[in-house]
């Protein structure tokens, strides 16, 4: 069971009709519903990472998302806690070109540091086994 308020402690009647909020001018995203845990693909459509978390920052009195995070932050979303800032792998929001069923980037994944494990395995293991760099037949 996930945490919840007990029935008697709920401050408001559950079936109350609430007013419609002021309609904002731009695209509306609910982070969990539309952004978190979605696949990030690069400009060619190759998978880069999953949006494991999002970094927010205060700018001119507004709080905005600056980077998508991936890697060790996943473990802390599962088990709780918070990884040290030095271990966040970031993809800057300015690379994002589209948020739909996937999050699309305008750059090649190769240029991003989130892919270091993939690159390491390619250089040191998979690429060295005969046939590793050939198309399947």
């Amino acid at each position: 069971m996930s945490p919840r308020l007990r029935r008697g402690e709920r401050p408001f009647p559950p079936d109350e009709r609430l007013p419609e909020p002021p309609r904002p001018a731009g695209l509306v995203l609910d982070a969990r519903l539309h952004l978190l845990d979605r696949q990030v693909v690069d400009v060619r459509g190759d998978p880069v990472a999953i949006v494991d978390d999002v970094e927010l920052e205060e700018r001119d009195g507004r709080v905005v998302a600056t980077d998508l995070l991936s890697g060790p932050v996943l473990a802390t979303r599962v088990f709780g806690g918070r990884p040290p800032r030095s271990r966040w792998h970031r993809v800057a929001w300015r690379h994002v070109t589209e948020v739909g069923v996937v999050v699309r980037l305008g750059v090649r994944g190769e240029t991003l540091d989130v892919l270091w494990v993939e690159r390491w395995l390619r250089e040191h293991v998979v690429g060295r086994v005969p046939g590793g760099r050939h198309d399947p037949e």
Partner: protein
Amino acid sequence: MTTRRSPGRVAAALAATLLVGLVGLVGGCAYGPSSADTSAALTMTAALDEAASAVEVGLLVVELVDTDRTTTPVADGTLRDALLEVGSASGSLADALPPRHLQDARARALDAVADATAALTDARAWVNDLAGGSAHDLTGALSDAADAVDAVTADLEAAA
């Protein structure tokens, strides 16, 4: 103010589980002194069933080889599997600790399974062309072993 699952409920669930477990244990013992007999008899009949199944496999393989319907590797592999089964049956029989009045039945069960093992090894030698004899003789030996196994099984079921 918030509950992760109130301790009261956890305790209740634990208590319920324990209770069910206890009832199961007591229920299991409710047969009284005869329960040990029953369990030994059950172990032994299960082992005899396994041996009976293996002997039937042997009979079928001999028939298939005799009518040239199977290959030597398949026949050999099948008999080896059957031999593993009688081996395991004999192990379970030896391992059981039946009460006094079932000791005689256990001895006969071990004999029957030993006969089955011998008949199956003969069949395997014959299949691999390492022994003479006819399919008829082998079938006879296997059938006798099957009868012996069945007889002990019937006795055990009557006694239990």
